[in-house]
């Protein structure tokens, strides 16, 4: 198992083994356990208290901003990986370093703005 496809073949194999393990474990569990359901047992478990209301709650728009921050910085991180592999390579050097920090600088202003507007506080 070597080379590009070998390495990822190993990953795929591991995934298959994991899936088989979970399936076998749960199936064995289902076959071996006793099943005596009562209405109480079928209730949704909510820390031992009887569940109140439906399972769906409308969330606040402020949480959406956090998700959005996550998306923006995930995109940001995606560019950091390729950058990290090349910026020390011969022929790149300071210019590439500066280019990445210009990119990060622009996004940092976004964080600064979010902080100034109090988006980041939980109050």
């Amino acid at each position, binding site marked *: 198992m070597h080379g590009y496809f070998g390495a990822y073949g190993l990953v795929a194999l591991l995934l298959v083994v994991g899936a088989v393990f979970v399936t076998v474990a749960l199936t064995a569990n289902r076959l071996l356990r006793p099943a005596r359901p009562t209405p109480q047992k079928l209730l949704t478990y909510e820390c031992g208290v009887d569940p109140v209301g439906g399972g769906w709650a409308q969330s606040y728009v402020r949480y959406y901003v956090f998700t959005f921050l996550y998306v923006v910085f995930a995109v940001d991180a995606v560019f950091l990986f390729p950058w990290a592999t090349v910026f020390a390579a011969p022929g790149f050097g300071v210019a590439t370093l500066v280019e990445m920090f210009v990119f990060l600088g622009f996004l940092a202003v976004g964080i600064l*703005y979010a902080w100034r507007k109090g988006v980041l506080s939980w109050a």
Partner: protein
Amino acid sequence: MTAAEIVFVLLGVVALAAAVLVVTTRQLVRAALYLVLSFGAIAACFLVLTAELVAWVQVLIYVGAVVVLLLFGIMLTRAPIGPTSDLDSRNRPAAIVVAVATAGVLVTVLVRGFGDAYVDLGEPSTGSASGIGANIFRYWVLPFEILSVLLLAALVGAIVLSRTDIGPPKDGDG
């Protein structure tokens, strides 16, 4: 057919089937989860094509961030869990016709153009992180820097639209 080709075709079938389920399911949350499956299968397709970095970007951005954003978007609404009948509009037949026609044209053109084109997947160096990094920072620095303005504008735009302190003018229409 080589093993890689068989795996690629199987993944393609999974991606396509999941995509069809996304638009046909009557439950909004399930549509989002089928989308995860579709994106994941496409990421695996990229992996088979030795486009390593793109595959992991697909996982990180689409399977990770975009689907989370979608689910939060659904949770912002009052959409109920469970089957919703008004997910289908009366334009369904028209949509099917348009979708099939578009797909037909594109598939025909692509098969006629690239049907017998084979790419040697030998050394996966262009698709790796260092290959793409070298390309970005040697040839595509300008779009990369413009992208930072785009991301910042998206961030500020999202924040300003979610601010609750922008109210109407006090004395009627200004």
